[in-house]
């Protein structure tokens, strides 16, 4: 009798995730480098460069949705609960930094409401750990 659920799809999903994340990192930093250096180029090329990370981002979203669809009901519930907590927390962070921006000038390069997106995965995974604890 099999004592373990098949791990091949998990491994495939993980590999896909790593490849897409690597693609995103490469295209994001390449686009940032090219645009920040201000190389002379037609506006169309600049726009295309700026939108370059969109493709791996869309692939990443597709991979996440595919992975969620492959989960069982408890895992889906846990992820849903994590999103339900993480989403308002992200909005709270955005609103807090937005209001702070009215009073003090937050440096756009370091820490401002523009960077909330970077904290969203951390907030989400924090909420995931929190919600998992309820079912363990």
């Amino acid at each position, binding site marked *: 009798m099999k*004592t*373990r*659920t098949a791990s091949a799809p998990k491994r495939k999903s993980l590999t896909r995730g790593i490849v897409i994340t690597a693609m995103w990192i490469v295209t994001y930093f390449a686009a940032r480098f090219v645009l920040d250096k201000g190389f002379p180029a037609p506006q169309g090329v600049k726009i295309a460069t700026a939108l370059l990370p969109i493709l791996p981002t869309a692939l990443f979203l597709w991979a996440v949705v595919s992975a969620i669809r492959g989960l069982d009901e408890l*895992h889906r519930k846990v992820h849903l609960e994590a999103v339900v907590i993480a989403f308002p927390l992200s909005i709270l962070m955005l609103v807090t930094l937005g209001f702070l921006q009215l009073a003090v000038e937050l440096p756009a390069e370091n820490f401002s409401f523009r960077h909330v997106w970077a904290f969203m995965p951390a907030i989400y995974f924090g909420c995931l750990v929190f919600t998992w604890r*309820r*079912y*363990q």
Partner: protein
Amino acid sequence: VKNSLRLLRAERDWTQADLATHLGVSRQTVNAVETEKYEPSLSLAFKIAKLFGKSIEEIFEADAIENEKTA
């Protein structure tokens, strides 16, 4: 909701992973159902009942308070 899943699994000498494989869910889900931290969906409850050849009511039992409410 109380259940006798652990007992039924032990009767067959299955591990949680074995039961999870039979039900097509993760071991964590089986554990959460057994420890009554998670109430399975109706479809999973039917799967469990079918697997053990029992009715849902024979495996799952509403808590005492719930029984009083419905009485």
